[in-house]
Every structure is written in structure tokens, then in C-alpha cells.
């Protein structure tokens, strides 16, 4: 084991290994920052240029790129309300309001620190879980997927600002929109109007780009103010952000645990990870009033989960050869091209490669977070650029990002439609967050519900320990506020 650890680390200590790590990290950063592009795209681009490398060097450049994407995607989520992928959508909930208050540095500092520590957490868990990874992966099935999706949906209840009815209506609209496309079970087309593009339903990334970035650019253009408005940019904010992670260490740890667990479960995806982490941060907080309006705990939880999930997603990839996410699927394909077949064989015969993978993931995250911290002060100044300059840039970047993800014009149309929908949803006081959560989680909810019924029947939801526990937690979280009000006796002179 120790020999494998040393052999795994050695390639990274060579000059060429470090240069490849740097190259991968910078490429990952670039792709993470551009809306719409992310891990799968940067890996697909890098695969051909790894042909001339040996398997460990190829692993370094690919994993470094993959590891650098999540935090980079969060930079745009915080600064211009544009999550690079669905996995950093929850970062916008509190990250962007902080930018609007002139506290982008605080959010970026917290995000960089939580990202780096989250990745380290995920990697440590991965190292310890490899021997029992099999049992952990097997413990989650359709009912658990369903309960986790419902848990994610329960965030809608805690992010409502203003009218809860408008929030529920927004969530309902999101769920309805998630039914567009081929039925995840029968394959029958629903609301596709004979259009092949709609067979896959509303894709998350163009919808996110439209709902947040395009809607924001339209609003900036109309209001004619910068993102931070009249607020002053606080220079000390970056270090306050770093410190805030340690001040709210419990939030960070819980976020990392949620991210790692979701990462381990193939088929659930990173989207659920950041929503669930955000939900637990809100539900376990005593003072919930600032969430959605710029609470740093929301950023810490979402970012910790977003990065910890990559370590988790490596568990099924190396234990079964089954990718835990789309990024992992591309990485798996690349490893195969280099003669490495992930699965039990790799685990037994090439443990050094697995440790190279773990070390690369950690170092790439530390590197990208350091770069993020170093540049956060400058990046924060972007929020003071006048709207007449920044709004068209956001608008153009959004359309390019929507197109470049799959090279489809249909994605651009979806982004534009959601842009205008997002603008009016916000203007009329409905909840964009509720709509997007429901849209992103709708498909997995209906899929896992149907799978459970076919495979196990209704009892499947309640006779499995993890599923039942999740159900009880959801029930408690949703009913506790009402129970508290009901149980709490009014004190003398207190108005309930």
C-alpha cells in the first residue's frame, strides 16, 4: 500500500508531471469559467493530446483539468449569476446577492477555501472508502435516489422569498417543464411536438444560463447600474471569506459529507449534491432569514459539496468501472485508451495510478483555489463595471456558452426563452430558484419513483433503512417549523 502511495506521488514530483498538472489545471479553469463548458468538454479536448503520453502522465493532465472545473464555474456563478454547470447552481443563491452587496471578495474567498478543503475531504474519504467502496455503492438504489431528489426539492420550501404560493407555483412550473422529452421509463415522447431536439427535454445548462445569466444581463441593461450598484467593494473581504469557512466549519463538514455521498452514488449527479448541501445548511441553521439574500453559509455548503463529490464519484469508477458522473465517463474512456481498465483489475494491479489520480485531484484543487484567492480582489472589481459594458458581454458569453456545450442551435433558443422567462419570473415576484430546482430534479424524481415501483413496489420506499431514514429526515425538516409554532406556548406579552 505504502509503495503504491509513493509510486502514485512520484510522477507529480517530476518537472514534466508538474507542468502537465499546471496545463491541465489552467485548461480546466478556462473551461470552468466559460458558461456552458465544463469537465466533459475539456476532457474530450485533451484526450487526443494525451496519446503521446504514458498512462500516469495522461491521468495527471486529465484529472487536473477535471478537478479545476468546479471552482472556476463558481467564479462566474458568484460574479455574474451564471453557474458554469448545474453542479454550481446553488452557489448563485447566496453568492450573487453577496456580489450585489459589494461582497464578491468575501464570497470568492469562502468559495475558494471551501472548494479546496472540500476536494481534500472527498479525496481522503475516497482513500479510506476504497476497501469498503463496494458496500457503500450497493447500499443506494432507486428508493434512495428518489428520497434524495425529494430532499433536494424540499429546498423550495426554505428558499421562498415573499409569497410561499408564488414559490410553489414556480416549483410546479419547473416540474411541468421537466416532463418535456421522452419518458425516462417508457421512452414515449411527451410534449415534443415532433421535434427531435425536445426528445431530451429541457437541458439543464442552457436553462440555467438563460434563467440566471441572460435574465441578469437584461435586468442590468434596463436598470443601467453595475452588479454591485452603489455598494463599495470591500478589499478585506477575501480573507474574511477564507476565515468564514473555519467560523462555519460544521456547515463545511456537512456540505462535504453530502457531496461525497452523492458523488459515490452513480446516476444521481452533481446537481443534487449542491442543492442538498444547501438545503442542509438552511435547515440546520438557527437564523435562516439571510439565506437567498447573501448568507456566506449558503456559499460554503454548496461549494464544499460541489468539490467533495468528485472524490466520491471516483469510488464507483475505480471499484466497479462504472462512472459516477459524465466527467467520470469521459475520464474512464480516456483511461481505457491508455490501457487502463478501471474496475477490480486496476484496483489490484495498478493501485499507484489510483493514488496518482487522488493526489492530482487534491493538488489541482489547491492550485486553482490559490489562483482564485490571489485574483479574487481583482475579479471582485468586475462587479463595478458599468452595465452598458458588462451586460452585452454577459449576454454574448451566455449565447456562446449555450451553443458550445453540444454545438446545437436549439440550446441557444432554450437559453433565450429561459432568459426572458427568468426576467419576468423575477420581476413578477415568483421564484427563479424554485423553478430551476424543480426543473433540474424533476426528471430524476419521476425516473427513480417509477423504477422503485417496478422493481420493489411501494414498500421499497419504506422498508429499506437508508430510504426510510431519508424519508423521516425530510418529514421532520418540512414539519418542524410548524410543530415549533404549534408547541411553543406564547409568553406573556409575546405575539406569536
Amino acid at each position, binding site marked *: 500500500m505504502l509503495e503504491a502511495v509513493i509510486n502514485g506521488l512520484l510522477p507529480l514530483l517530476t*518537472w*514534466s508531471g508538474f*507542468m*502537465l498538472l499546471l*496545463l491541465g489545471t489552467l*485548461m480546466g479553469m478556462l473551461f470552468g469559467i466559460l458558461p456552458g463548458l465544463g469537465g*466533459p*468538454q475539456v*476532457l*474530450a*479536448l485533451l*484526450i*487526443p*493530446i494525451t*496519446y*503521446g*503520453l504514458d498512462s500516469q*502522465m495522461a491521468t495527471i493532465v486529465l484529472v487536473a483539468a477535471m478537478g479545476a472545473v468546479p471552482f472556476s464555474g463558481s467564479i462566474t456563478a458568484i460574479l455574474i449569476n451564471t453557474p458554469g454547470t448545474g453542479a454550481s447552481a446553488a452557489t448563485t443563491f447566496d453568492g450573487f446577492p453577496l456580489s450585489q452587496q459589494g461582497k464578491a471578495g468575501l464570497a470568492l474567498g469562502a468559495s475558494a477555501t471551501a472548494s479546496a478543503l472540500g476536494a481534500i475531504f472527498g479525496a481522503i474519504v475516497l482513500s479510506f472508502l476504497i476497501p469498503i467502496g463496494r458496500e457503500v*455503492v*450497493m447500499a443506494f*438504489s*432507486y428508493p434512495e435516489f428518489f428520497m434524495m431528489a425529494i430532499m433536494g426539492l424540499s429546498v423550495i420550501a426554505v428558499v421562498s422569498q415573499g409569497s410561499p404560493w408564488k414559490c410553489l407555483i414556480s416549483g410546479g412550473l419547473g416540474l411541468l417543464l421537466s416532463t418535456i422529452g*421522452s419518458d*425516462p*421509463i*417508457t*421512452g*414515449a*415522447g411527451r410534449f415534443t411536438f415532433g421535434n*427531435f*431536439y425536445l*426528445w*431530451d427535454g429541457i437541458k439543464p445548462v442552457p436553462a440555467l444560463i438563460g434563467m440566471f445569466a441572460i435574465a441578469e444581463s437584461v435586468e442590468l441593461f434596463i436598470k443601467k447600474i453595475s452588479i454591485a450598484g452603489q455598494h463599495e467593494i470591500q478589499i478585506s473581504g477575501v480573507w474574511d471569506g477564507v476565515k468564514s469557512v473555519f467560523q462555519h466549519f460544521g456547515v463545511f463538514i456537512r456540505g462535504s459529507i453530502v457531496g461525497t455521498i452523492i458523488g459515490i452514488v*452513480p*446516476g444521481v449527479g452533481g446537481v443534487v449534491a449542491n442543492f442538498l448541501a444547501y438545503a442542509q445548511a438552511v435547515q440546520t441553521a438557527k437564523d435562516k432569514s439571510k439565506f437567498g439574500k447573501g448568507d456566506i453559509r449558503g456559499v460554503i455548503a454548496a461549494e464544499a459539496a460541489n468539490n467533495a463529490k468528485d472524490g466520491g464519484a471516483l469510488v464507483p469508477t475505480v471499484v*466497479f*468501472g*462504472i*462512472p459516477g458522473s*459524465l466527467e*467520470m*465517463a*469521459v*475520464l*474512464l*474512456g480516456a483511461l*481505457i*485508451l491508455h*490501457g487502463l*481498465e478501471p*474496475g*477490480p483489475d486496476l484496483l489490484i494491479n495498478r493501485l499507484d495510478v489510483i493514488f496518482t489520480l487522488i493526489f492530482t485531484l487534491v493538488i489541482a484543487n489547491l492550485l486553482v483555489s490559490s489562483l482564485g484567492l490571489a485574483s479574487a480582489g481583482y475579479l471582485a472589481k468586475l462587479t463595478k463595471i458599468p452595465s452598458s459594458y458588462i451586460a452585452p458581454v454577459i449576454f454574448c458569453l451566455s449565447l456562446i456558452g449555450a451553443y458550445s456545450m*453540444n*454545438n*446545437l442551435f436549439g440550446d441557444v433558443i432554450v437559453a433565450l426563452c429561459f432568459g426572458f422567462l427568468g426576467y419576468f419570473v423575477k420581476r413578477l415576484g415568483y421564484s427563479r430558484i424554485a423553478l430551476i430546482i424543480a426543473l433540474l430534479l424533476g426528471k430524476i424524481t419521476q*425516473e427513480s419513483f417509477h*423504477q422503485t415501483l*417496478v*422493481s*420493489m413496489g411501494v414498500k421499497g420506499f419504506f422498508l429499506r433503512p437508508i430510504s426510510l431514514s431519508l424519508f423521516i429526515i425530510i418529514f421532520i425538516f418540512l414539519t418542524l417549523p410548524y410543530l415549533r409554532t404549534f408547541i411553543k406556548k406564547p409568553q406573556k406579552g409575546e405575539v406569536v
Partner: protein
Amino acid sequence: MKKIHCFLILCVFSLILGVNFSAADNNYPQKAITIIVPFSPGGGADTYIRMVVPYISKQLGNAAIVVKNIPGGDMITGLMKIYHAKPDGYTLGLFMTPGQAVRQVVGGVNYDLSKVTWLGRISSMDYVMALSPKSKFKTLQDLQQADKVILGVANISGAIGTLISCEKLKIKITPLSHRGSQEAILAAIRGDVDVVQFPITTMRTAIKAGDLNPILVFSKKRATEFQNVLTINELGHPELVDIVKIGYYLGGPPNITPSVVDILKKAVEKALTDKELHMMADKVNRPIIEANAQESNDEINEIINSYTPFKKILSNYLK
């Protein structure tokens, strides 16, 4: 070390400047060729094409070849981009049977695979049916006698050969869709579905690890690695061998200029018979089972014809 430094400098410059390594040939190709893959990056088909591309590029004088993933619409979105591309030889694509052929047989799609300019077959794989060790069913006979067998599939159009074979074998299946073949295999390992049926390459790791028990191979003769497992031929259904088979083909839009087609056909044929490629492919358990352009063309027409009698069953599944 020097090699890696040169490589790093080269790739950084090529990425920044978008350098086009144009071929030595003055006629074709003069610019980058795009190969459209109608799937997301990662996965079997994508891995195959990325493995083969450097060898095709070599045969075309190191021409630049860009692999472009256009997933969605059950492979049809990408296929339409290939089919309606300008027939100049600069847009080619990866095709997969039976899914795309099945959609054509059912109707309602705007393409005809018999008109595609076929360049060659990269590989074709036999399927294996395997039981979950946690299932109450232990043999093929158990499955045939059961009232309900849950079959884990990736998507209905890709599993259509499997569904037809189960009808022929009189297995009363309830298909349960998953996001991909790997998720379906994992469901079988967990015991949430009774049986799965996928290409041997997809199932090899799980079977080798003892996580799944193979009970039937869809091939004419016994597979080397599954000598003790029955074949569909032995059960008296040789017609199912071609129906339950996956094939990856390389082709282009109809009516590509004949002189360009000749260059492409020769390049693809030489690339697919390259010994180095075969050795590499075998090493990673993704064997190249190539066919030339004419054989591919005949094979595709045969596949379409073999599915035509099942149009009614197909239409039921692909509503």
C-alpha cells in the same frame, strides 16, 4: 523528458492558435475533417472512434480530424447533422446499429441509411445475457417459466434487439430503463433487476468479477471467454444473432464526391487493418472487427431488412 516538453509546447500553441495540421495532399483533405459522434463524450462508441481517429489521420497525411459530440434525440440529432452535411468529405460521422436502423424501420424520421456513404465498420459485438446473482432465477428455463422478469435496459431503442429476442425465447419481461448501460448493470449487481443483456465488452468486467452470471451468448459459435455458456444458435434461433448485435460504422452524407470517397475508403480500410491499432484495441478489450465500405453497405441493408418483419413490435415499444 524532451519529448514531453516538445509535446507541451506544441499542444499549447495548437490550442491557442488553432493550428491546422493540414495534409500533404494538395487536393483532399485541405482543411480539418469533422467526425460527428451522436453521443456524449465517454462511453463505448466514443472511446472506439477516439481510438481509431489517429490512425485514419495518419493515412490521410496527418490531416486534422476533430471529433465533435452532438448527443441527444436518441442519436438522431447528431445523425441528422451528418446526413444533411455538405457532401464534400469534411463532415463524417459515427453510426450505430441497431438503434438508428430500428428508428428508420419504425418510420417518422427523415433519413435513409441505405443512402449513406459507408466507409467501413469499426467493430461489431455480440451480446451476452446475464443474471443477477441475487435474482431468484438461476437458469434460462427459470426465466422462461416466470410470470414476470425484470430486464434492466439503457433505453428502449437500443434494447430493441433484446426485447425481440425475449419475445422469441418466450420470456415475459418487464423492461426497466436506466440512464445508461452501466447503471443497468449496477442495478443487476445490486439485485434490483433480474437480468441484463449488453455487448460482451460492456459486461466483461462485471462477469469476470463474478458480479453477474452469463447464461446466453448471442453468437453463432461459443465465445472463447464463455466456453461453458450456451449460444442462441444452439437454442435454434440463428436469426437472432444479427438482430441482437451492436455495430459501429463510419460514414458520411449521401453523394460525397466519388474521388473523395475513394481516398476516404482507402484511408479508413488501411487504418482499420493497422496492426498497431489492433494490438492496442485488443489490449484494452475493445477489439477492432473491421469491414470495408462495400461490406458495411451490404450489412446495413441486411440489418434494415431483418428488422422490417418486426415493425409492429418495434412500433409498440417506440411509441
